[in-house]
């Protein structure tokens, strides 16, 4: 038994175990030291958690777009981050116009709905064009080709929007209804906007889940993701289903863009890049191709990222740990792909496709 194990155990395995072990040790020791030092009260941790959940629900919404497309086409839609950016960036002009005309303050609900509608429509337009022009002609080509196209499309869209709308940061207007905070008794308070983001994301995700599970189109989508050719034989219009998948993903991304912009105010042409990679991480974390997985992965990543730097690194005496939050997210991506490439909810497909 032991001999067989030793035969199969290689130097690279040893290396990986060492890396994994030392990262785990770092996390445990760091958390212990931070908690023992006690610089942070329960209120701080509560704030971190709520912020993480809000951030995570935005990630989850974007991650759903990656997962939906991956589930059907087995390709990473690298340009999905730009689909998200286009909605938020275009939404700014609508929000700004409504703010200046006073409509935003008189009729906040209607105005916000209009804002979401515009952002989602823009994202959907971009995604449909993307699918039609860049992806559809390449559906039968070698695997690297659509991926490179997607990278190209990502940069093309980024800099097209930079050219169209300019390169400066734009600040979303202040929505009065969403300002302020609720007190939960004692020292715990919760920002209204964070609650709104979490609730809105939850509603959207529930809607998507119902759509995919209950409707005819959803059923067709699941069939296409199982096997395109057989689905076509069963009378499903595969191209149309793929377009609808892109539309669904883009609508969620557009909504995520507005939620993000309402929370952080700033939008610019580059805003999609980091959330895009994070959302992809979230999708992988939950098991790419798996819809509940993407939701779970997003929330988990958001939480990890907001609590992690302080919890793991502060105790180790690392200055400004918050700068390293992206490092934590990327490290997590790498670790997940190495030790559990099927993700939390273990989609079976990934082992063969990865």
């Amino acid at each position: 038994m032991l001999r067989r194990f030793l035969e199969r155990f290689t130097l690279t395995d040893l290396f990986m175990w060492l890396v994994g072990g030392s990262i785990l040790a770092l996390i445990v020791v760091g958390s212990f030291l931070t908690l023992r030092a006690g610089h942070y009260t329960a209120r701080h941790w509560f704030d971190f958690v709520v912020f993480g959940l809000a951030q995570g629900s935005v990630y989850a919404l974007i991650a759903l777009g990656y997962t939906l497309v991956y589930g059907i086409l087995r390709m990473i839609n690298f340009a999905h981050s730009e689909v998200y950016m286009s909605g938020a960036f275009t939404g700014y002009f609508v929000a700004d116009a409504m703010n200046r005309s006073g409509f935003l303050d008189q009729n906040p609900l209607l105005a916000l709905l209009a804002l979401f509608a515009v952002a989602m429509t823009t994202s959907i337009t971009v995604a449909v064009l993307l699918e039609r022009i860049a992806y559809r002609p390449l559906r039968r080509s070698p695997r690297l080709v659509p991926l490179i196209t997607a990278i190209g499309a990502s940069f093309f869209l980024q800099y097209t929007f930079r050219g169209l709308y300019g390169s400066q940061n734009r600040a979303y207007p202040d929505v009065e209804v969403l300002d302020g905070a609720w007190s939960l008794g004692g020292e715990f308070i919760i920002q209204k906007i964070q609650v709104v983001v979490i609730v809105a994301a939850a509603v959207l995700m529930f809607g998507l889940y119902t759509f995919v599970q209950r409707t005819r189109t959803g059923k067709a989508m699941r069939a296409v993701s199982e096997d395109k050719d057989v689905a076509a034989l069963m009378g499903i219009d595969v191209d149309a289903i793929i377009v609808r998948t892109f539309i669904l993903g883009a609508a969620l991304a557009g909504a995520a863009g507005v939620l993000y912009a309402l929370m952080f105010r700033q939008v610019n042409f580059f805003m999609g890049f980091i959330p895009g990679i994070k959302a992809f991480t979230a999708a992988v974390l939950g098991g790419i191709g798996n819809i509940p997985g993407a939701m779970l992965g997003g929330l988990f990543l958001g939480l990890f990222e907001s609590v992690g730097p302080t919890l793991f690194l502060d105790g180790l005496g690392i200055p400004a740990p918050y700068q390293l939050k992206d490092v934590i997210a990327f490290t997590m991506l790498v670790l997940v792909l190495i030790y559990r490439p099927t993700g939390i909810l273990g989609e079976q497909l990934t082992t063969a496709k990865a």
Partner: protein
Amino acid sequence: MTKNTHFNWLNALRMGLIGGVVALLISLVGMVEEFSQRDIIAGVITMGQTLLFIAILMAGYFAAGRAAGQPGLNSLPSGALAGLVTAGILAVLVVIIPLLNLRAILPNASPALIRILTFLQESLVVGIFYLLGAGAMIGAAGGLINILPAGIRRAVILALFWVGLLGLLQELLRVTLTNMPQVGAVLSWMFGSRGLSVPGAIAVFVAVAGGNYLWASQGDKVQDRIRAQPPATHRAMRWGSIVVAIAVVLYLPRVLGPYLSDVTNSVGLFILMGLGLNIVVGFAGLLDLGYVAFFAIGAYVMGVLTSSAIGQNAGQIVFGPQLSFWQALPIAVGVSVLFGIILGIPVLKMRGDYLAIVTLGFGEIIRILALSDFLKPYIGGSQGIVEVGEGQIGPVIFNTPQTLYYLIVAGCLLALFISRRLRDSRPGRAWKAMREDEDVAQAMGINLVATKLLAFGTGAAFSGLSGAIFASKIGSIYPHSFSLLISINVLSLIIVGGMGSLPGVFVGALVLVGLPELLREFSEYRLLMYGALLIVMMLTRPEGFWPEATHKREFHEAAASEVAPESAPAS
């Protein structure tokens, strides 16, 4: 048959609409205005106009191509209609910009753009008539090009391309020619104040078109005659061309002058990186998006080891042995290789898109770490490292563009030599086998771990060398020099040149790094054009401009047989 002779309105309209959307995008993104500062033919046509005309010409060309019926009869009106529609969309833009105050949203919808689109006419109406007329004429010209016999068509397109290229590069040519006054005087009539002169443009057009046409008809005979020469002559000719090439390479910086030498050096550093990534992506088929990490590591090792600004108060970093350039260079390359292997081990089992994302993550981790306060005492954080050492051989110090040139050329030649030898030997064949099918390669007895790590290590070595020279060339290192864009840049250049092709790396670097460096206006739109170029390349010519033989075959087979290479077997 009745259907075929029918004039195809709808199709021409469609092409015109597509052309119009493209032209609209080019205008609103700001390219037309920015590029209008450069003339292609002095006083006649600017680069911005050329861009629009190309859009209209293409619309006309494709509209005519799809027009059914006898060629000639329907092609011209189809092209003209498509051009008219394209120009019409631009005309609508001209009208609605002032009406809707579009500038508040789209900063490039400016009065300057309107002036360019209406040919600087005072009256808007006259300008729009000019625009529509030009659109129809250029569209018809596109249709005309389409119905020319193939040989002439190729000659005309090539000639137009060369006129454009020479017009773009006239500044560069002029700088070069001032260093060689004898030749310069002869050619000075070709160039006007800001671009080609009219006779110059006509001369270029006629020369290229005529030359191409002659070569197409007579080229085979010339080649046959050369082939018929005895082997001794062949050998002499080959040695002769090698000697000439060496002389040109050695003499080049003197002709180019400091500015152009500097541009050449940038291209050289990218060639070096491209050769490295070519091994990883082109030979071994491992898509690496974090390639800049090794460039950064090479630069930082060189910086830390040679910087003379160290100490708590004297400089940004607290530790530095102040080695010489030549002592630090092998260490920098060695550390890069080490990191190449260390970062390679975790991704050994990953394929395709997962690999791409993880390596992208690695690249970002390295950049964020370099920027963080955490490592600031050692590598300078956002303030970087200054006073990086310079190389020296005897009396020659590598600190000016013209001397650095030789260092970079030496590096490129070394990398080229190693690449070639590896490609044609056992590891090279193993890489290619792995690229085609990992499972089969493993079944054939290829050690995947060693093969992959060798690819990562060699790639990292070239990139580290490039980074070390870069650090010494710039003299200071800042984290923002190592953004993801470098990785994308290098990836684009090997894809444009042709994955796995060594000459392709040179072609790609010249086109994607050299051109934008020379044309300042391009820099703003560099990534936009890269993105578009990647998409267009993948759609139309996935094997690149100078493809490697096997790759070319593979792509054409894939296109020929409709067998679906369905990514991976379904589980």
